[in-house]
């Protein structure tokens, strides 16, 4: 195997950091800290997208995941915090079972992955992929219907979450 290239070094560093912050997200006791480590994880994944020549995905990752979803999670933690004052264990009594399932899953997937011969080199990127992506999402011969269905679904989710979170009549 030839010498390790710069892209590989960047990948290894970013991947190890991202997995480490993800481990903190799933294990740390204080949920606010977990949400902040989640932001670090999402940023690491954005760097991975840049390494994959998917600039639009990296931008959407930062704007949508970090800017919207992670902040929404921080708000949810703050709104529901009083009862969870970070006392006691933050995992249920079956945590060891979850650990075994996750470890077996990872071992199985990675042995499978490393036994397959993947295409060694990525194909050449021709032209502007952002332009091609934007065209494909409004092209009737390509993905305009999934795109419109996704936008209708977003509207429904918006209305639904407002309805759910409204302080309605307490019909208990």
């Amino acid at each position, binding site marked *: 195997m030839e010498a390790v290239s710069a892209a590989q070094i960047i990948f290894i560093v970013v991947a190890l950091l991202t997995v480490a912050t993800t481990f903190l997200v799933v294990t740390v006791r204080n949920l606010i800290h977990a949400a902040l480590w989640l932001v670090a994880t999402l940023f690491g994944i954005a760097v991975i997208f840049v390494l994959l020549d998917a600039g639009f995905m990296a931008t959407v990752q930062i704007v949508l995941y970090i800017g919207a979803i992670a902040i929404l999670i921080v708000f949810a933690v703050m709104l529901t915090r009083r009862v969870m004052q970070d006392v006691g264990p933050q995992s249920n009594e079956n945590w060891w079972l979850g650990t075994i399932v996750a470890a077996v899953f990872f071992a199985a997937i990675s042995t499978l992955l490393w036994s397959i011969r993947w295409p060694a080199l990525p194909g050449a990127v021709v032209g502007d992929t952002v332009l091609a992506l934007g065209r494909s999402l409004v092209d009737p011969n390509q993905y305009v219907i999934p795109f419109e269905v996704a936008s209708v*679904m977003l509207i429904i989710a918006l209305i639904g979450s407002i309805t759910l979170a409204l*302080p309605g009549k307490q019909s208990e």
Partner: protein
Amino acid sequence: MVPLSWYLTFAAALFALGLYAVLARKNAVAILMGVEIMLNAVIVNLVAFWRYGNPSDIAGQAFAVIVFAVAAAEAAVGLALIISIYRRRETVMAEQIDLMKW
């Protein structure tokens, strides 16, 4: 270049950690964070396969964009549900939300 299997192993590690969070965490918000991590691992896989397959076919990225939209909708509805449950039951512990359990 970075081999494809590195990206896939990285995504598998993220997915396994998210799976652990879903299975083992008590707090419903933490479970939702696990779901978000798993969705993100799936998106990494999609983009990696797009890049190492045929990059002139934009289907992989279009699929990933749709998954982004679904993840956003899932987060909004999930957090609204958690806040609604918290308002009624004063708890966000998954094991105490057992109204439909008998």
